[in-house]
């Protein structure tokens, strides 16, 4: 057993069961048959686990930072856990810059995912936490605060932190108190049926500045999560060690936990690189099994860019150039080069997964798709006309468009600037109810979709026996699920003559823009071992006037945006679209995946709203991303030949 894993499993270490641990690593790395894990899920949640029949998805954010994250706390985020939950539930809070902030519609769930590295540093000092004050410096700070000399304490604190900040926070007792507070506040706001708080944190590994971050989400309550300490990148930067920790958590404590990678676009070509991090050797079946088991979903859109695909990877996809942020890695240290791109984007990884499955027998990149905010200001917001930014400096102001979020230490061209940021994204979860277990189970079975921040609703089922009539019935989802599988599911080998077809529904955000089209993105592996992709338009607005061109593509929906006034009208597009689509080029011997992408009509971005609202016509550039076509991506359905 790796000792850092044991250290994080507190209760075990404390109760002296540590002697039992050596057997654990082999157990955790052993094969997990899909049957076993499926049986496990059913035992926990009944038949619902196979299919969420409810007619509405739950919208939430799986990736929010508060002042407890050291980078957020030190960069001026004052709002903490309470404000984060209150804001997410729809309450009005005073923002970091002193403005009144509220969502137009509350979120259904929230995962506060603060960085586990130096978790709570700023907060603990501010609150003079007794564990921190055991040091002489802590005591000094405390005394100054009590004497009303807050400012002097602040100077002292700043000087101390400049000397290197790990020392105090690597104090496990302090970390314990912050983690338990995190869990306690989550517990307080967890109100199943109305609003769910899932307990989680972010593992912040970025060797050389390449983003390998994972949001870690527990299915369990405080009673169980209090028994561990977050496994951080200080413990190990190797994701396989994180998985070992997760496996130990599950087998030793009986809980469930999953991890969500994000920002492959800032990973210097490492997020989906099929190599062991340490040895740089090609991955093996064990790696693939662990990755598939612990990383069922990937965050493909957020403020720092969208990671579905890249124009270089999908030159035939005219909608691929959406919110691409990829000049360098996260630290602004290493410029991105073309050979890195294939290992940074989800669609390409899904394709490579088919190849690797052929080779290894297990698909390491078998994941569903979600979006989330990664906001660092305790304010999870994604509406273009009500965007509270990614950090305190990006809260609404006439200057925020000029902000530099991440300043490169190398070269200004590698800076991550506000102009590149999107007011993205959200996670849509087709769960059987709004609770920790139901939401987590839906994430684990990948019955989820991601949006660029809009609350458009998308649903897809795949099967062999659909007539197409099902789509017209009010309870279509029930019949579709009875005869097929939902997003995230697997289609088993087709019998002679069988061809898969898909039932798809999409409905606009009631507070948003009409829909342009529904597309299916298909990826497949041919007999020579090469992968391919194709995007099919399967349903679109004004179908009588918009007919496919010679290239087989549906022409643009046009635009109703007035950029200067930051307005649009729903005079184009459709309020809802449905489709029954049969794969015209199905080959029963080829591995494949299918996922749905839904596009809205063009709308103004937050930059256009700022330009109009703050009257910045003279200052802001004439050319900037002032409009975009917001969108949703569902998790894939995989086809598995015999």
């Amino acid at each position, binding site marked *: 057993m790796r000792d850092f894993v044991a250290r994080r499993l507190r209760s075990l270490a404390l109760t002296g069961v540590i002697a039992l641990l050596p057997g654990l690593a082999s157990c955790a790395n052993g094969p997990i048959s899909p049957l076993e894990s499926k049986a496990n899920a059913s035992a926990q949640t009944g038949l619902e686990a196979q299919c969420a029949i409810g*007619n*509405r998805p739950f919208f939430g954010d799986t990736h929010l930072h508060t002042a407890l*994250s050291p*980078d957020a706390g*030190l*960069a*001026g985020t*004052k709002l903490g856990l*309470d404000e984060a939950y209150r804001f997410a539930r*729809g309450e009005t*809070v*005073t923002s*970091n*810059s002193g403005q009144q902030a509220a969502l137009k*519609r509350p979120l259904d769930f929230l995962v506060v995912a603060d*960085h586990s590295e*130096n978790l709570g540093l700023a907060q603990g000092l*501010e609150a*003079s936490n007794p564990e921190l004050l055991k040091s002489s410096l802590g005591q000094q700070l405390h005394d100054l*605060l009590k004497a*009303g000399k*807050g400012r002097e304490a*602040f*100077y002292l604190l*700043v*000087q101390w*932190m*400049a*000397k*290197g900040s790990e020392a105090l926070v690597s104090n496990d007792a302090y970390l314990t108190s912050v983690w338990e507070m995190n869990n306690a506040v989550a517990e*307080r706001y967890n109100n199943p049926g109305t609003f769910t708080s899932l307990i989680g944190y972010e593992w912040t590994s*970025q*060797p*050389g500045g390449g983003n390998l971050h994972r949001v870690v989400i527990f299915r369990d309550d405080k009673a169980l999560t209090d028994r561990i300490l977050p496994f951080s990148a200080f413990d190990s930067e190797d994701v396989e060690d994180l998985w070992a920790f997760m496996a130990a958590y599950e087998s030793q404590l009986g809980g469930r936990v999953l991890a969500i990678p994000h920002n492959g676009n800032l990973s210097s070509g490492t997020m989906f690189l099929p190599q062991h991090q340490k040895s740089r050797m090609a991955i093996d079946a064990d790696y693939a099994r662990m990755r598939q088991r612990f990383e069922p979903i990937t965050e493909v859109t957020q403020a720092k860019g969208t990671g579905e695909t890249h124009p270089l990877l999908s030159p035939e996809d005219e909608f691929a150039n959406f919110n691409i942020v990829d000049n360098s890695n*996260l*630290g602004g*240290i290493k410029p991105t080069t073309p050979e890195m791109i294939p290992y940074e984007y989800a669609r390409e990884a899904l394709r490579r997964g088919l190849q690797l499955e052929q080779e290894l027998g297990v698909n390491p990149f078998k994941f569903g798709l979600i979006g989330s905010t990664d906001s*660092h200001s305790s304010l999870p917001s994604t509406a273009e006309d009500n965007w509270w930014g990614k950090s305190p*400096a990006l809260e609404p102001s006439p*200057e925020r468009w*000029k*902000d*530099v979020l*991440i*300043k490169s*230490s190398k070269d*200004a061209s590698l800076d991550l600037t506000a102009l590149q940021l999107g007011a993205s994204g959200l996670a849509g979860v087709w769960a059987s109810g709004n609770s920790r277990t139901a939401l987590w189970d839906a994430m684990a079975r990948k019955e989820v979709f991601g949006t660029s921040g809009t609350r458009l*609703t998308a649903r897809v089922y795949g099967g062999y026996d659909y007539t197409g009539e099902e789509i*017209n019935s*009010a309870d279509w989802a029930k019949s579709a699920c009875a005869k097929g599988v939902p997003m995230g599911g697997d289609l088993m080998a087709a019998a002679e003559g069988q061809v898969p077809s898909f039932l798809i*529904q999409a*409905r*606009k955000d*009631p*507070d948003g823009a009409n829909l342009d089209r529904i597309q299916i993105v298909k990826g497949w592996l041919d007999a020579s071992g090469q992968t391919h992709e194709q995007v099919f338009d399967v349903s679109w607005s004004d179908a009588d006037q918009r007919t496919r061109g010679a290239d087989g593509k549906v022409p643009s929906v046009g635009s109703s945006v007035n950029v200067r006034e930051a307005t649009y009208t729903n005079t184009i597009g*459709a*309020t*809802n*679209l*449905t489709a029954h689509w049969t794969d015209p080029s199905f080959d029963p011997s080829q591995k494949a995946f299918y996922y749905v992408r839904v596009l809205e009509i063009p709308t103004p971005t937050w930059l256009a709203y700022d330009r109009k609202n703050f009257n910045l016509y003279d200052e802001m550039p004439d050319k900037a991303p002032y409009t975009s076509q917001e969108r949703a991506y569902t998790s894939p359905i995989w086809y598995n030949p015999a």
Partner: protein
Amino acid sequence: MSWRERLHLLLKEPIIPFLMVGAALFGLQAFWSPGGSQGSAEIVVSDEQAATMVKAFVRTWQRPPSQEELQRLFDDHVRTEVLVREAMALGLDRNDTIVRRRLRQKMEFVNEGELKLSLASNQELQGHLMAHADRFRSEPLVSFEQVFLDPARRGDRLNRDAAAFKAQLNSNGQGLNPSALGDPLAMIESRWSEERRSELVAQFGSTFTDALLEQPRGSWVGPIPSAYGMHLVRVSAVKPGALPPLEQVLDAVQRDWQADQRQDQQEELYRQLLAKYSVRMPQP
């Protein structure tokens, strides 16, 4: 890039990954250092500062800097120091909105540490609950049916069809399946039972929801508009929202009370600081 813009970049602390926080704070320290604004001609990179830079470098690169790299770090530090001092001597910091906002934020952050937050007594909480009843009232619950009419399908016929369907539904009440009459609307049910107002806003938009709550009970009325088109509706019941007893919302009231306290105390601290100044301003 203008001189001023360059300074913006220099003065700003980016949100950076935690591993670069040490380095950023070093810049912050230089910024706050009392010597900085004196225009002293001496710039010293102390051993302590050098050690900090090395540490930050090591955490970023996972190796110590070479001699050359270390020299670059020092040079960069000196450059920042020189430009910051010159900028401050020119007073460029004073009229810079971003600098001013950051200073204000830091001061509020300092003040925040001095707040003394306590727990309220039940009596205080009861008072708070009554004084802010609107914050704690439960939502109205609506039971209704709806038939969707899609303008994209029906165009000019929509109002005529609506009138006909409405008459049919009202005369033939129970025998008719309302969902068979209208147009499909993806993933929206026809029958809703005791649904929260906020949920209806999430599904239909606020225009529809507000209108729905105004409709008479028991018979088919409309059409009323939503984000999707037009709807005939029959509202069977609306359970009004109510103010729950304190026991049921104790935590929420406590939180809200504390949030108010925090704001009041922050305001009080500001008033104390303000008292040190005499302020004159033009009549607005």
